[in-house]
């Protein structure tokens, strides 16, 4: 029987990614179907998918620069076409790097590379950094944040060495702000924007953690929502309501399998699919 993505979310599997299976599980956790599509399969298969996710990992071993080799792959032609037609696309971590290197994000000049995800700039250290962060939902409408309340704070973990959103084009930055494309910003537990490490864990300009395209269907986010999809993934000592909830659920396997904070990004896609715009 021929493979079909009708009604499914396609998880794009570039060589070297390592978060594809848990991303598919995160999609399934909200009742949507998901399946993997290898980068060298026929991209026409994507035409019936309800959306696409480029997961985290190290596509092409991060050779040359994280995400750039995948950005040149043939399959990105089809993603470009579908994104232009309004189909939702989410890039998580390495997937975000692919979307930035493809010029889909910020996408003000489609496919022009107007941003970079540069090496982290951190206090007294460099390289790879893993931590839980707090994200403030700002910006305007985006498919992937539909279920997140305005000004809501969502804890989600990061794990990257090149996650610093930056641009040397002041006009592009101005446009992004004007368009409300800075949809997720690193913040304190209370929702305050503080540019200092570790609140801003990588030195991103404007504390950017997630940037949407102008049309609101493509999102590049460095944090990993699929690693915060179940309550059991939340650390007990995480500050705020989610940590307390996790602590109270200790020993109760039923509660541990309930939703974690990152599931809301996948819930957003479901809400979009159901037409609750």
């Amino acid at each position, binding site marked *: 029987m021929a493979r079909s993505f009708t009604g499914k979310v396609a998880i794009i599997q570039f060589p070297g990614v390592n978060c594809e299976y848990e991303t598919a599980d995160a999609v399934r956790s909200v009742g949507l179907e998901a399946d993997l599509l290898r980068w060298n399969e026929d991209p026409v298969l994507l035409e019936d998918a309800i959306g696409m996710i480029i997961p985290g990992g190290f596509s092409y*071993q991060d*050779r040359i620069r994280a995400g750039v080799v995948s950005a040149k792959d043939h399959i990105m032609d089809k993603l*470009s076409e579908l994104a232009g037609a309004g189909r939702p696309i989410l890039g998580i971590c390495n997937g975000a790097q692919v979307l930035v290197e493809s*010029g889909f994000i910020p996408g003000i000049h489609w496919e022009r*590379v107007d941003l970079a995800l540069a*090496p982290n700039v951190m206090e007294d250290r460099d390289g790879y950094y893993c931590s839980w962060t707090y994200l403030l939902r700002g910006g305007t409408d985006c498919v992937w944040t539909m279920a997140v309340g305005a000004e809501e704070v969502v804890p989600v973990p990061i794990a990257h060495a090149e996650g610093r959103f*930056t*641009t*040397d084009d002041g006009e592009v930055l101005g446009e992004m702000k004007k368009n409300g494309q800075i949809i997720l910003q690193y913040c304190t537990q209370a929702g305050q924007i503080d540019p200092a490490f570790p609140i801003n864990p990588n030195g991103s300009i404007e504390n950017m953690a997630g940037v949407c395209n102008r049309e609101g269907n493509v999102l590049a986010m460095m944090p990993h929502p699929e690693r915060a999809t179940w309550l059991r993934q939340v650390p007990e000592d995480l500050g705020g309501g989610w940590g307390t909830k996790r602590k109270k659920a200790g020993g109760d396997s039923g509660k541990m399998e309930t939703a974690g904070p990152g599931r809301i990004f996948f819930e957003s896609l479901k809400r979009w699919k159901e037409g609750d715009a």
Partner: protein
Amino acid sequence: MKTKANLWVRLKVIDLVAQTAWMTLTEKMGFAGDLCGILRYSYWAMEAEGENASAVCEAIDREIRMDSAFTNQNKHLYSLAVTSGGDGAAAGDLSIDRDFPRVKCGGRIFACDLFVSEQGGGKDEGYASRLNARLSGAKVTGMKSGEVWRILVRAEDAEEAARKVEEMAVTRSRKHGLLLNPHYQAFEFIGTAEIDGQ
């Protein structure tokens, strides 16, 4: 005495990053007719003070061989050249002026050395302090670090070669440029020479 010291380091074995660049440029980006070969080096351009070029070369050479942030003799080849006016000294097992990949096309071929570094200096200060903490008989007073891509292209002249290399290297859009992102990286040509393709 003020000197200039250039350190080039590359892998002894096949460089998979350079191979990936080759395949991406030729198979996905349409440069199969123009790109004739590619190599990648780690590169440090230093200014250093010492008694003379030979003394500076000897001092720096002793330390870079002991510190894997610069070279690891199990896996790297390197070339260190120190100059001061007409005076010069060299060390290492790599002959940088004759280090070219196997040429994979015909016509006039130019080798362009493209230095790519992080805007704002990146790790330059760290490298300088690291060396100065151990150097005796010399002091590093200036440091620029990054990668050099030695790119062999078929071109009519050096200007055309530089233009083609810039097209290959500087990422302006999804379909244009691979080797650096100008929003956080800088580049400069530090050498261009016509080579014998045979």
